């Protein structure tokens, strides 16, 4: 026998206690949706997991109204200390139900259980734990004393890290004092609904967190709802663009975390074995369904062949298959639609003259699968070198000098992430400086932490999630110096969504932290106020 085959080691699904049907979670309770239901399926087997409600426009109204009521009547009146305690409760409940959440995530999304178990769910708990501690320390968030919450946050998240993206959205929003209506992706609603149960268990006041399921139209209704003060979206650049358009002229504060085509740059003095691991982690982690994936490998020409050889050898040990098997490295593609896109772009890659390679691997007959794939001889003009594939497909290009590497890395409308592999510190720092990307990983890749801001340049979106920047995305400065302060203080008392005027005043005085301004643009009103005196 071959030891390397490893006997199956399936994670037990016994601890999953799923309902056969899930409603919308509005105002603290599950209720039926008004639109026709849909099924969520396991992408590994195409078998139905549960029936999911679909929120109509009226349901969206109800959810936003519940969030508004909760904001006005309870959440905005609660002390930061108590908000913190609720969030700590959630963090603990996530830890206690970690295994169950991991299994549900792998079942619904198709990602390997070792990732949902060791990455997604621990990070979810960490995110709530981190932001819980911020709730009573908002004065230090960089917006001056007594910053205020924005109100109702509309949050739309993608299917690649369903529960983790929920945590990235909900934890900072609640810590800052907002209430939320969140829409999970159509293909991965399960863990968000389990999270709704956790919200109930934690005893959160009704309406503080509302989870509505549905298709794209539900998300559109949500972000365009007039009583929403903040929109946070993670997903494709095309949808992000549409949201930015539709929010033009409103006072809604917007953060967008969109697509990417991350360059992973390997210099000839790289720690080679770790670089190979990093390349693998960069593109095959989560089947490449990662906006910051290192999907463009830029290898210094003098080690190109060696790196490709080592990569091929390493890929041959990747285990593709049942997401619930603890030894699976690469799971299922999330949907038939995504599989079609990956297949199409890969075929285009071949047609454009790139050389395609995949290790021998037996793919299951049911479900959506795509073997880990490398493309060599990729030209910079090729679509597989420019378009986000969002799958386990790596395009390999070469460069000769650091300047060429930087130029090629930056030659994209995206600017989310990049990797650098080199043992030379000064080179790493110089290249990191020149890369136009929001996250740069040096001698590592795809690391995430609640304390570390994450977000893009250019068409990868604006605003940051994580860290104090991620908190600021859900806050506005309390008041403003000089004449604007009088208007703003009037506005603060209204503090409901109708405070159009007050909001506008704050926007203007704060130099446009609302609207489409980068949320990284935190305002230091204390500093401004101090200097105002000198100026006037």
């Amino acid at each position, binding site marked *: *026998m071959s*030891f390397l085959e490893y006997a199956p080691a399936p994670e037990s699904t016994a601890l999953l206690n799923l309902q056969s049907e899930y409603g919308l979670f509005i105002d603290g309770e599950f209720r039926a949706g008004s639109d026709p239901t849909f099924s969520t399926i396991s992408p590994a087997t195409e078998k139905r997991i549960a029936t999911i409600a679909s929120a109509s426009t009226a349901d969206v109204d109800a959810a936003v109204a519940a969030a508004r009521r909760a904001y006005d009547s309870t959440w905005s009146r609660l002390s930061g200390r108590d908000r913190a305690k609720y969030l700590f409760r959630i963090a603990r409940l996530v830890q206690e139900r970690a295994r169950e959440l991991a299994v549900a995530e792998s079942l619904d999304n198709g990602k390997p259980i070792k990732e949902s178990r060791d990455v997604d769910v621990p990070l979810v708990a960490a995110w709530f734990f981190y932001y819980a501690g911020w709730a009573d320390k908002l004065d230090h968030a960089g917006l001056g004393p007594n910053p205020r919450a924005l109100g109702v946050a509309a949050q739309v998240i993608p299917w690649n890290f369903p529960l983790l993206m929920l945590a990235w959205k909900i934890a900072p929003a609640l810590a800052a004092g907002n209430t939320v209506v969140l829409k999970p992706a159509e293909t991965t609603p399960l863990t968000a609904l389990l999270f709704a149960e956790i919200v109930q268990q934690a005893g959160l006041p009704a309406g503080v967190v509302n989870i509505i399921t549905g298709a794209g139209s539900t998300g559109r209704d949500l972000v365009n709802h007039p009583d929403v003060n903040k929109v946070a979206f993670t997903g494709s650049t095309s949808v992000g663009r549409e949201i930015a358009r539709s929010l033009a002229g409103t006072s809604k504060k917007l953060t967008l975390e969109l697509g990417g085509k991350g360059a992973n740059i390997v210099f000839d003095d790289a*720690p080679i*074995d770790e670089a190979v691991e990093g390349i693998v982690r960069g593109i095959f982690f989560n089947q490449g369904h990662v906006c910051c994936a290192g999907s463009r490998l830029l290898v210094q020409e003098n080690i190109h062949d060696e790196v490709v050889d080592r990569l091929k050898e390493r890929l041959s040990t990747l285990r593709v298959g049942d997401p619930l098997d*603890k030894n699976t490295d690469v799971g299922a593609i999330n949907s038939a639609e995504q599989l079609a896109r990956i297949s199409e772009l890969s075929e285009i890659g071949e047609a454009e003259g790139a050389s395609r390679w995949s290790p021998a691997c037996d793919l299951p007959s049911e479900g959506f699968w795509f073997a880990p794939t490398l493309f060599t001889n990729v030209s910079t003009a090729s679509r597989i070198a420019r378009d986000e594939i969002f799958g386990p497909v790596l395009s390999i290009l070469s460069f000769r000098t650091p300047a060429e590497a930087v130029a090629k890395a930056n030659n994209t409308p995206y600017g989310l992430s990049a990797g650098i592999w080199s043992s030379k510190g000064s080179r790493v720092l110089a290249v990191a400086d020149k890369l136009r990307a929001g996250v740069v990983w040096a001698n590592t890749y795809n690391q995430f932490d609640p304390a570390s801001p994450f977000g893009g340049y250019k068409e990868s979106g604006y605003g940051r999630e994580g860290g104090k920047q991620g908190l600021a995305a859900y806050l506005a400065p309390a008041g403003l110096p000089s004449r604007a302060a009088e208007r703003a203080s009037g506005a603060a008392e209204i503090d409901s969504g109708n405070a159009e005027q007050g909001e506008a005043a704050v926007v203007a005085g704060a130099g446009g932290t609302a609207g489409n301004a980068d949320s990284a643009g935190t305002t230091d009103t204390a500093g401004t106020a101090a200097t105002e005196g000198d100026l006037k």
Partner: protein
Amino acid sequence: MTIDKVVSPASRATEVLGGELTESSLKRYLNGISGVDAVGLEARAADLGSRSIKTTSKAWALDRIISLIDLTTLEGADTPGKVRSLVAKGLTPDAADPTCPRVAAICVYGDMVPAAVEALGASHGLDEVSGGINVAAVATAFPSGRASLAVKLADTADAVAAGADEIDMVIDRGAFLSGRYGQVFDEIVAVKEACRRADGSYAHLKVILETGELNTYDNVRRASWLSILAGGDFIKTSTGKVAPAATLPVTLLMLEVVRDWNRLTGEKIGVKPAGGIRTSKDAIKYLVAVAETAGEEWLQPHLFRFGASSLLNDVLLQRQKLATGHYSGADYVTID
């Protein structure tokens, strides 16, 4: 165990270095080897360690671990009696189960080699006898290596003459850390020569790096290359007398080196983590690392060993659990 072909280490090294073999060319070559990122290496090791080995794979792994063990006693208090007891344990690890495989070798100090050889009797020799066991001797002023070269060579020759099949030598860490790579190289070459038997065959040479004293992964990688260049048949992590001894990341790193050496020359070099591996669970992680790094063919006694003593009993307990379905207890395995 003997080496079939005799290639002079110096000529092999010259070939690999692509030029004259000098202190400075050796230094240039070793310093030119790609560095190691510690965080990445440890993350990869942890990842390999998270493989879930169950049922049939586990049963196979447990038996394989036993057959890869250098059952070891390296105490000042060792006596021929203790060695005989160890040999008996190595030959019959589980008295209640005759299907239990034997260990690969008994590893002792040089003066205990005659006792081990005598105790093994007809079962001496991994390659010579079916079910045979080798005798490995630590030599070269083990564990510190702080003796003159003459003493180290005499130590080695003495053990080989007494019937040792394998010599576990230590490198001069002092010389290595002060950059005298040539000296370390020459010493390994000399010890290898001291492994030569009267009939022209060689005792198998394992080169102990003592990774706990080399301190950095970069050093471990260079020392591994140096030891292989100088003719070592195996590279071994530790003496077991210095902490930390074998770790999964260090072993993974050494496995990467033997894999790369194989890619470069076609030769297969063995790896022996020693010291600190006490549980089946840990040992299985090493098997995974071997299989997924160097390849499954390395999972045989000529290419991979565990230097261990207490590991054997834990594996036996796990074997019993698999066979009976119940957890076993310490009183159901023998103290060697």
